[in-house]
């Protein structure tokens, strides 16, 4: 950390004596640092979401066939959801150490619990007579899943994915406990040093990131389910 306002033309708005909340000079002077944190934040969030999706899809398809497994999966997901993030990360440290993997796996678990529920709800929302009609047309299991059930379940699944994405962005900040928190690292540093511009910039970027990702997912949903365009 370089020290305070060694500025030439009066103290800058982020010097210790001024310490303003919003300070464009800070954003310009430290944009490397901010960009790094932003990139790390996005990378951790996306990795966690991908991990969640990759595990959730087969798990949900399996749970749908086996009612025993379904209640087990739902019980487990309620349990994980109940454990606070600041407690979940330390519990992973013995396995993955102080690495980005700890944060990705922890957040992936949270995303997983949301996504499995959304997938099961979505698939359950497909009307039975639609399934029967598809069977009558000669659809096999795999083709029915890909062509009939998944597309019809998509609105519910996408709603779940949006919830998972937005909350994962917010949760990534807690990763600062193991020093991989993306923008959360800036927030932690800002609190420790009473550096208001850093704190506010990171907080605003977090919320903006959540809004952008949510918007992108809404667009993706429009593209994937063109038939719902007229109804909304």
């Amino acid at each position, binding site marked *: 950390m370089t020290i305070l306002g060694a500025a030439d033309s009066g103290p800058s708005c982020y010097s210790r004596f001024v310490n303003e909340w919003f300070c464009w000079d800070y954003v310009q002077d430290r944009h490397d640092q901010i960009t790094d944190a932003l990139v790390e934040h996005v990378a951790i969030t996306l990795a966690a979401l991908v991990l969640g999706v990759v595990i959730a899809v087969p798990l949900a398809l399996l749970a749908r066939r086996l009612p025993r497994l379904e209640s087990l999966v739902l019980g487990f997901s309620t349990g994980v959801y109940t*454990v606070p993030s600041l407690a979940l990360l330390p519990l992973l440290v013995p396995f993955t150490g102080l690495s980005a993997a700890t944060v990705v796996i922890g957040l992936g678990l949270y995303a997983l619990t949301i996504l499995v529920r959304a997938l099961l709800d979505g698939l359950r929302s497909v009307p039975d007579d639609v399934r029967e009609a598809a069977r009558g047309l000669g659809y096999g299991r795999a083709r029915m899943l890909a062509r009939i059930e998944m597309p019809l379940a998509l609105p519910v699944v996408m709603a779940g994915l949006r*919830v998972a994405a937005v909350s994962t962005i917010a949760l990534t900040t807690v990763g600062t406990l193991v020093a991989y928190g993306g923008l959360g690292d800036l927030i932690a540093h800002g609190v420790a040093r009473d550096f208001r511009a850093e704190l506010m910039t990171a907080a605003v970027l977090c919320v903006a990131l959540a809004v952008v990702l949510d918007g992108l997912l809404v667009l993706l949903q429009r593209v994937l389910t063109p038939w719902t365009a007229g109804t909304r």
Partner: protein
Amino acid sequence: MDLFVETWQYLLDPDSWAGGDGLVARLLEQLLITATALVLAMLLGLPLALWLGHVGKGGFLAVNISNVGRAVPTFALLALLVAADWPGSAEFGPYGRAGLATLIALVLFALPPLITNGYVGMREVPSDVQEAADGMGMSSAQRFRRVELPLALPVVASGVRLALVQVWATATIAALVAGPGLGRIITEGFARNDYAQGMAGAVVVAIVALVLELVAAAVQRAADPMPRSPSSDRDRTMSAPSTTVAEAPTGS
């Protein structure tokens, strides 16, 4: 895997539990602030949500407030409150350092699930049931108290459960900004590279969270005005609204 052994030893050591910054003191601190925040949020949010649901107004706000609550990182809001001139990180009564800032953040994050579920629960009361109440000559207040409220109770109660989970999680995170509670055991452990202490704190936090959730679920079942028992002949009227608000996930 020595860490598990060390964690176990830390948990067995009576010294870890005793004293002003031991596990017991921190646990009581966090339970106190969790209970205070939940009660305050219920007093603030539930009357508003139930009234909005009763008159059928403000639905957009009531439903979307949950999405807003999810997008704001709890850590960021706590940090902003602590760094500001007010409430700052001052001691606050029995709530310890940064107590007021933590309390405000907890109440704010408890409100969305309470308001959304309160509103949705009231709106999900079938319109023919409401019409029947009107037809029986009930006044608006009577309909609210004797028809809508009992039928909405399961959904409202699940909102309270979600709020409880949220408040407990946020109270833990308060330690990242040097606030009170059990999270301090975790953050201090990590700051001193004493990972056994961090793990031990996490284990206690997680177990208490699961216990609170189980207790809340039991209370919710007990409060259900229409328990689905085969002997009850009220079942035929209607089953409680099955579609609750999607579990507002962690958000913290």
